[in-house]
């Protein structure tokens, strides 16, 4: 990579970092350098070792072997204060701000000496304003953090690091919670920081944005540094291959061919007040079509998913399923042909302590297929579980093992198989679900499993099912959705064909802005 000679000064040197957790090698002799004014992306799947590496860098963990040198001085291990003092700042994915305090208080917190009678608020504010001006990060120092948007809070986190004199900034999955516009704004901020000589480590698993923002990309897989590349000379396909270790077909857009009748109709649905709610949502789901719901998480997605999964009832409005009111009972729902993929596969999808085979039939245990009155038909249940394991290629644990022994991807395949494979289904006479409710179905999965899950959803759609896909991942929404609707503050924007949306329009709708020209 032709790095201009002015920026080749190395600010951070990681050499031979190794960290083991039991038998698991989370980091295996990783060596990396970071130059002044450079954006280095750390790319890798869940469990590749990205978080472990930056936790060591920031002093949360102590490495078993290896050294770190920052600005020419060795960094003492296991000491976050030393990391801060050396000019390393970290912006966590989950913000570490106190909602009930102002921006200024949050930024001052921890940076004032303990034995000082009065806080130096005026100096602090002046310093904060100077830093904000320097990087064009406008924020009201007296605003309460709880009243800020997610993007603004992230800005406060960045300011907090800069206020403490960070010259190296680590950002952990910074775009996971942002709208596309907010992401663009963040990238502009990063560009300004780099231009002023700061260095950035940008952690992500999203290929497109990594190519977009970074100068250099380091790919981790299974704890090893498998590749480093110049962002300008590599491609998404190449990066994906490094991440998973073998060539991979990224999912392609396949539009719906035969859109059928309305399967499920929501009209002015209001859900009971809770942390997030639906406030008059209307939607029509048609057979043979994927309706993708985009939105910043926390805008009513959970309420919508729970409503259609039968675990929450509507307080007002109507939900019609195949012409009748949708029952608020999971077992009835499943019996009537609703296939459900919950957001949190560990906490809601399976009972981890119970065996795989019991989880494979848990939704239909009350049907005659798997119980006769009081008694469970164990043989039939085990046979069906075995069928799911084979048909959906669930590996890593047998039918008798507890479900928690499965990896995330295999657990999701089990849930998918449970939802999609009807016990009466025969190869020549398949019984397909009428409606599929998939809430974040690929969240946290590795690329291979993502492709598998997406293919299954497309196949189910082509077999005639109406699919509701709720996802925070805009790329997924745009690849899978035939129709796209945006959810904001409990309202659903009228859905439009995916081709009629631009990323910008979706982003504006996600932020709740009126769409331009509409």
């Amino acid at each position, binding site marked *: 990579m032709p790095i201009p000679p002015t920026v080749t000064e190395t600010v951070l040197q990681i050499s031979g970092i190794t960290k083991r957790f*039991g*038998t698991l090698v989370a980091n295996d002799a990783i060596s990396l350098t970071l130059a002044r004014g450079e954006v280095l992306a750390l790319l890798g799947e869940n469990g590749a070792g990205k978080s472990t590496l930056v936790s060591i860098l920031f002093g949360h963990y102590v490495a078993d072997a290896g050294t770190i040198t920052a600005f020419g001085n060795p960094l003492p291990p296991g000491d976050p204060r030393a990391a801060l003092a050396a000019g390393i700042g970290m912006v966590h994915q989950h913000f570490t701000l106190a909602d009930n305090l102002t921006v200024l208080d949050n930024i001052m917190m921890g940076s004032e000496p303990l034995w000082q009678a009065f806080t130096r608020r005026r100096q602090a504010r002046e310093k904060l304003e100077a830093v904000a001006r320097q990087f064009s990060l406008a924020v009201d120092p007296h605003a309460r953090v709880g009243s800020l948007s997610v993007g603004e809070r992230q800005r406060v986190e960045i300011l907090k690091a800069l206020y403490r004199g960070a010259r190296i900034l680590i950002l952990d999955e910074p775009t996971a919670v942002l709208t596309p516009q907010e992401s663009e704004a963040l990238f502009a901020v990063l560009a300004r920081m780099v231009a002023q000589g700061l260095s950035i480590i940008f952690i992500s698993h999203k290929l497109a944005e990594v190519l977009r923002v970074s100068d250099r990309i380091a790919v981790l897989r299974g704890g090893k540094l498998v590749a480093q590349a110049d962002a300008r000379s590599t491609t998404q396909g190449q990066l994906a291959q490094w991440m998973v270790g073998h060539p991979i077909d990224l999912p392609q857009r396949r539009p719906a061919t035969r859109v059928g009748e309305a399967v499920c109709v929501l009209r002015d649905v209001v859900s009971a007040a809770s942390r997030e709610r639906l406030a008059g949502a209307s939607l029509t789901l048609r057979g043979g079509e994927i309706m993708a719901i985009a939105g910043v998480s926390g805008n009513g997605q959970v309420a919508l998913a729970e409503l259609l999964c039968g675990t929450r009832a509507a307080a007002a409005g109507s939900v019609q399923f195949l012409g009748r009111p949708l029952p608020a009972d999971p077992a009835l729902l499943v019996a009537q042909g609703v296939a459900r993929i919950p957001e949190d596969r560990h906490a809601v*999808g399976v*009972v981890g*302590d119970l065996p795989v085979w019991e989880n494979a039939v848990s939704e239909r*245990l009350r049907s005659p297929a798997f*119980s006769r009155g009081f008694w*469970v038909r164990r043989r039939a249940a085990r046979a069906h579980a075995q069928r799911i394991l084979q048909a959906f290629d669930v590996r890593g644990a047998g039918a008798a093992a507890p479900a928690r022994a499965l990896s995330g991807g295999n657990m999701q395949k089990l849930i998918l198989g449970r939802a999609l494979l009807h016990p009466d289904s025969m190869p020549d006479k398949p019984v397909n679900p009428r409606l599929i409710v998939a809430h974040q179905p690929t969240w946290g999965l590795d690329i291979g499993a993502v492709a598998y899950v997406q293919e299954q959803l497309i196949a189910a759609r082509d077999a005639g099912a109406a699919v509701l896909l709720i996802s925070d991942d805009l790329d997924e929404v745009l690849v899978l959705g035939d129709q796209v609707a945006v959810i904001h503050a409990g309202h659903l924007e009228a859905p439009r064909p995916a081709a009629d949306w631009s990323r910008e329009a979706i982003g504006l709708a996600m932020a709740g802005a009126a769409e331009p020209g509409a």
Partner: protein
Amino acid sequence: MRLEKRHRQSALALVLAPVGAVAVTMLVSALLVLWAGAPVAQTYALLLQGGFGSVFALSETFTRAIPLMLTGLAATVAFQARLFNIGAEGQLYAGALAAVAVGGLHGGTGFDQIPMPLLFALMMLAAALAGALLLLGPALLKARLGVDEVVTTLLLNFIVLLVVSMMLDGPMKDPTAMGWPQSVALMGELELSKLVPQTRVHTGLLWGLGLAVAVWALMRYTVPGFDIRAVGANVRAAQFAGVPVTRTVVLVAMLSGALAGLAGAIEVAGRTSYVTLDMSPGYGYSGIVIAMLAALHPLGVVLASIFVAGILVGADSMSRAIGVPTYIADVIVAASLLSVLVATLLTQYRVRLR
């Protein structure tokens, strides 16, 4: 020092864990025996002999094991569903009181006109119902309002004991008991027959064994059994899969309370024939220990209750012979529980120093 999850559990560790737990228990108890100034080997020998070494010893052990088995099952059913029923002691007394209310020699109630087998069934039913209803309140409070059932069931024990005391000094007082606070006796025909002549062990043992098998089959082979385990292991996932959560919690409460209530009725019908305030030396609480020792396995409860009963009975006779206080029995039971729990933990986690 911290714990780290083991990625796989070795078969050797699973075998060694209980052996190690027994060894640690013996070691800890041996230290106390030494402190009491007695020879360790002889103490253990006497203890084993007193608990298991003769027909008489075994019959006493089994007699003691019967109520422990039932309260152990009560705790097992409830704990499987994460309903922490600490109230088996109260439910036991409620069951005993209900049994005497139905089958006691009150005179003039007309109950003695009912055919005895039917009255026996009614007596058992009343005891089961009394225990079940006593736990129903805390279970509903938990399911509907999230009230902590540990607190409510524990405190109910004291209320029940006071009610029992009131009944024993009031309406149910035995007029022939020379002023002792004890209830009227059960009708003779309702008492459980002896399993072995000349001993105290009675057919309650068969009730215990039968109920243990029934609970085991319920848990393993039935839909409600799945519901109970699913609700206990992960209530959100259970609800998502369509398990009727509130109904399951109520069912568990009824089952657990009924088992503890039956423990009371069977004690009265098999051993004491009337209710006194000291008929249970904490069988309800020991049931929790037994359920934990059995790792919440209904058939394990049978073995655990016989083990605990044997230690308690053996310690009595050992203490008479050699002068080590009977408290050593409590130490052994407590130490064995703790070592089993630690051993189980160590099969799943490894300890990292530093």
